[in-house]
């Protein structure tokens, strides 16, 4: 059954790249270009999965993730974080320091994105 995936990235190329990869899955793809729009669409469209960039304007990525996880309507949507920052030294630390209660995201994808890894992770999270 077709599910809905929200792709959030401030770079059009990145959205194009992710969309092309995920088109294969047959799921419905919706996009947003900054944190605020992403949050709005998450609430309005109730996607089954969110693939989001963390380095968006200002606090965009981290702010949106926090909002998602603190909002009852969206906190159960699995999130895959796309980041250029190497895992371990980056995102986790920033999140934990800012917000002790926040759970870790369901998946990390490091740039440059490997399409197979993305597909496998999405398929695992959307059975």
């Amino acid at each position, binding site marked *: 059954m077709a599910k809905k995936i929200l792709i959030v990235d401030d770079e059009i*190329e990145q959205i194009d790249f992710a969309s092309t990869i995920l088109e294969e899955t047959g799921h419905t793809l919706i996009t947003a270009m900054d944190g605020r729009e992403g949050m709005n669409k998450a609430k309005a469209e109730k996607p089954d999965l969110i693939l989001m960039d963390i380095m968006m304007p*200002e606090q965009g990525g981290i702010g949106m993730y926090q909002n998602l996880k603190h909002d009852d309507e969206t906190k159960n949507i699995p999130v895959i974080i796309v980041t250029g920052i190497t895992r371990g030294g980056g995102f986790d630390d920033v999140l934990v320091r800012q917000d002790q209660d926040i759970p870790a995201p369901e998946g990390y994808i490091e740039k440059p994105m490997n399409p197979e890894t993305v597909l496998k992770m999405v398929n695992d999270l959307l059975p």
Partner: protein
Amino acid sequence: MLKILLIDDEEPIRKVLGLYLRSKDYEVITAADGREGIEAFQQESPAVVLTDIKMPGMDGIEVLKRVKEMNPETEIIVITGHGDMDLAVQALQLDASDFITKPVDNQALSVALKRAKERMEIRRRLKEYTDNLEVMVKEATAELQKAHDFQTNLIQNSIDGIIAADEDGTILVFNQGAEELTGRTASEVIGKMDIDSIYPPGASKTVHETFAAEAYGGKNRLVNYEIPLLSKSGKEIPVRISGAALFEEGRATGIVCFFQDLREIKRLERELIQSERLSAIGQAVAGMAHYTKNILNGLQGGVYIVNTSLKKNKPDLLPKGWAMVENNVGRISDLVMNMLIYSKEREPDYVDCSPNDIAQEVYNLMHETLEAEAAKVHDLTKRQYRVKLFKDLDPSISHCYMDPTGVHRCLLNLVTNAIDACTLESDEDKDFSIIIRTRKEDEGVRFDVVDNGSGMTDKVQEKLFERFFSTKGPKGTGLGLLVTRKIVDEHRGRISFKSSPGKGTTFTMRFPCDKERSGNGTAPKS
């Protein structure tokens, strides 16, 4: 007890005077004539001789002459007869101390003797003083010698090179330090070489000028001025020179200079620069890795989309994927160009060109990029793209002598930053505009890049020109502004900015326009 020889041919006089003198505590020897007197003198060496002038045989004048011959310091008082003034004068001319007349008055004799004793005392003191003086002179000379030796040692063994020259410039002092610095020996230099010839050609003129000027320690002085010396083998030795022109009663008499060897310091400086460069490279590599990862991601995305298009026969994907490849190849080439410009010392490639044309080119290029971006955003989100580019070019600017490629890159970097300042700004519904402005100025031309984007906090402004500082995370390298400033510096121009958070930023570059000011010489040292 003072010894007196009394010579008189008249016995009663000898007796009377003898008695009187002995009563006055003198030791008295008597002689009855000149010859006897001389003999007595030779034997007894009296200090005072009292002699009659008119005597048979050897007279008093003769006695006087002989005694003075034997001991010129002997006090001789002659006794003359009444009216023998001529003889008295003759005796005084022959260096008699005094004369008394017959009949001898005791009081006159006492006065004569007293004066004789005074003269003897003066002579004694004079002699003593002279002897002392000799000792004192000897001692003073030894002191002076010691001080002189000490100073010579000090000069000779000073680690600094010390060179002094007379008013003609001939070298007079050339110590070991100077020998070590220049590789010349004192003997081949002192009195033979001119002080100007220790500098490389042309440098001595600079030294003279600096001496005459106020800048380094005042007129006729030189304090901590850096210049090379020329060694015997023709090598330039970096030194720090301090010196003074010497004057005596307002007249120039020479010059003395101290040279501190800077070779070791320069070597350490080079090492420091080298290690700073290495650490900068480390920083740069880390920043660059993130940035290139981002580009690589874009390239892989493009390639993936092209492949998908070909494999799955989706021709509509092809232009999108190819554009992505092209775009990221462009980013890589920009990065490489910036890296090359930053890493190399270079002179601008000056050409007579139009600043407005450069601004127009950058406008066209970035306008096109923004249009394409706007179309894509609209396509994807149905939203209006909020960044617009404008130009405001001063038509009174004609030609300028500058490196068009370099200035193009500066403007491109500033406009790219301005676009980022707008798009990286949080998601307010604000319309952003960027203006490329040119203005003619008295001394050249001015470029402004004005945006109403996010602006910069004080903290960001402080770090702005630091190496590889970026607010864009992996989307920036921190190279853009560094390269821009470097190019502006190489043009002997100036770059400045005004910014306030939330309101926007204006960057201003000023370039000199004419050939002379923009410089055909070497690049300014930073």
